[in-house]
């Protein structure tokens, strides 16, 4: 019994509900919400170490033993993502305090952010397929509200696309769950894995696997990303950063869980994922280079990284999983920072096209250099955080002889570098367009969260060694699904 496992999900829910009653007291809401995400991060860090020492943790709700009850399973892969998600959302909350207007804040802004975090954490931790659906919905409902809160025209326009796409995807998700329950008679993920191994992954199960592939590709933005750039550039900066950092990662996590635990017997699926990843990276690069709106460029960068992380799944070796774990963590932090920086630039200049802005580094040196640092990190230049993930995924690709994947994924880094360098050279270099009198003051409270995220990026790059035992655990569990299955239903069902 590990009740602590439920805290990263239930703390945000509980505090979020309490905040509903504290609607007029914005200061209390701010303090409580950031304390909650920080506490969840602390719990996740404790659990991570506990898993390293004692193996995978499991919590059966109400003592209903698996495969009958629903349960949370904490393995290192999930717990690392919970930890980073909570840490990043704490920092994004700091940015939200400084930039969100009081009018939005009183419209239950912080409760919905907490519900979003709860849904994300629940999705990472659950060990039950239907529960995964429920946590997805918690996360999505909160994101619908956050996307449209404020009610500007673009928000509503993009909101409709976003809601429709996600309702459709959820419907397919439910369909997949129904099929799998009809075929295998269980929804516990470990139990499903056992039964799939017993009956063999025939055509029917492969079809179901492809339904799940479509569903989670829609959520993660793998190939089916057409909804993403619009809806991620519409909401206020803090919300966009939260979306960019967390939401696609949940889809990626679900893909990893599905295709490292359950549907692992048909190598064709990994080929399909590889092809999807390649197309995603190429199309993402084209998008990032084609647009001149900074927010669009940043959104397309999310898509490129989705493709990149999933090359790790297509390669599916231990070392590639290590790389993917590192890269996912790096990506959550650096995408949050990139979105915040893009939003800050748009806020400071009042313009969103990079060729209309020039010489910003004279006015706001901090923003300029942070942008430069983020660009290097995302492109994978050492000693920043993107480097080690790229190296490990590259090693995995060489190991299995997947040279096409290797070539495309490293060329995509150049695409990333080019798209961001173009923004940097145009907007930050050159003659300044803002005279010192017109310059909007750059508040320290906006600078603080940016600096904190940058510290994390550098820290993850230099301190990768410290994380490596946990990353190793995560990759081991992904590479050997028996560990997960044994932790959930024991040896007797194997």
């Amino acid at each position, binding site marked *: *019994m590990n009740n602590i496992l439920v805290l990263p999900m*239930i703390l945000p829910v*509980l505090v979020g*509900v309490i905040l*509903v*009653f504290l609607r007029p007291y914005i200061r209390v809401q701010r303090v409580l919400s950031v304390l909650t995400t920080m506490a969840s991060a602390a719990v996740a860090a404790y659990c991570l170490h506990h898993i390293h020492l004692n193996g995978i943790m499991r919590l059966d709700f109400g*003592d209903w033993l698996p495969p009958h009850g629903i349960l949370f399973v904490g393995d290192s892969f999930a717990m690392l993502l919970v930890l980073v998600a909570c840490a990043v959302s704490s920092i994004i909350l700091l940015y939200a305090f400084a930039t969100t207007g009081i009018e939005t804040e009183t419209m239950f802004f912080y409760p919905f952010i907490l519900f979003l975090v709860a849904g994300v954490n629940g999705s990472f931790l659950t060990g039950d397929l239907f529960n995964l659906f429920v946590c997805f919905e918690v996360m999505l409902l909160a994101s619908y509200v956050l996307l449209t809160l404020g009610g500007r025209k673009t928000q509503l326009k993009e909101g409709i696309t976003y809601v429709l796409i996600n309702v459709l995807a959820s419907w397919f998700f439910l369909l997949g769950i129904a099929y799998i329950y009809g075929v295998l008679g269980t929804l516990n993920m470990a139990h499903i894995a056992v039964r799939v191994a017993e009956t063999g992954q025939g055509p029917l199960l492969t079809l179901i696997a492809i339904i799940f592939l479509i569903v989670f590709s829609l959520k993660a933005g793998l190939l089916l990303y057409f909804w993403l750039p619009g809806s991620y550039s519409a909401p206020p900066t803090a919300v966009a950063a939260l979306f960019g950092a967390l939401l696609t990662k949940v889809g990626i996590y679900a893909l990893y869980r599905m295709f490292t635990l359950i549907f692992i017997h048909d190598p064709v699926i990994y080929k399909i994922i590889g092809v999807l990843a390649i197309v995603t990276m190429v199309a993402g690069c084209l998008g990032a280079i084609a647009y001149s709106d900074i927010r669009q460029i940043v959104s397309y960068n999310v898509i490129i990284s989705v493709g990149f992380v999933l090359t790790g799944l297509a390669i599916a070796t231990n070392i590639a999983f290590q790389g993917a774990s590192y890269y996912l963590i790096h990506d959550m932090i650096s995408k949050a920072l990139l979105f915040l920086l893009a939003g800050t630039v748009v806020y400071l200049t009042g313009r969103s096209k990079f060729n209309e802005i020039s010489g910003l580094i004279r006015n706001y040196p901090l923003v300029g250099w942070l942008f430069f640092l983020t660009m290097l990190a995302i492109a994978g230049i050492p000693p920043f955080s993107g480097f080690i993930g790229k190296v490990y995924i590259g090693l995995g690709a060489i190991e299995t002889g997947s040279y096409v994947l290797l070539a495309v994924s490293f060329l995509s880094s150049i695409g990333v570098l080019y798209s961001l360098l173009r923004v940097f050279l145009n907007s930050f270099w050159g003659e300044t367009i803002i005279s010192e009198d017109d310059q909007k003051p750059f508040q320290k409270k906006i600078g603080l969260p940016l600096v904190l995220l940058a510290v994390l990026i550098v820290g993850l790059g230099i301190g990768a060694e410290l994380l490596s035992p946990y990353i190793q655990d995560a990759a081991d569990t992904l590479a050997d699904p028996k560990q997960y299955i044994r932790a959930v239903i024991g040896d007797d069902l194997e």
Partner: protein
Amino acid sequence: MTKIVFFIILTFGVELFISGHNNPGGGFIGGLVLSSAFVLLYLVYDIETVHRGTPFDFKRVAALGVLLAVGTGMLSILFGESFLSQTTWLVDLPVFGETELGTMTIFEAGVALTVLGVVVTIILGISEDVE
């Protein structure tokens, strides 16, 4: 006439709620039936009249419900049991005789209040005129 129907629906909702968890019924459909009673009131009288009679914010009712439901889960943690563990006692009550009292009922009450609050909030949200 509406008042009579209103109380019939309310009684039915409570009956559904109480019979739940061992028999067909429970917090969710109990809450749905209760909210249908309120929707009937809103249809028959106008919104202001009903608000005068029920001076609470249904958004808060929903929040209270979630708080109750999650709270029972958290209580089981405080007692050192697994999250969401429930327990029951058999108690001799003066009128009802031997009755089963369970923490499940509190959880279900939370569910019922949540459903009630959410449904009424949605219906009121739709009915509001948007300029």
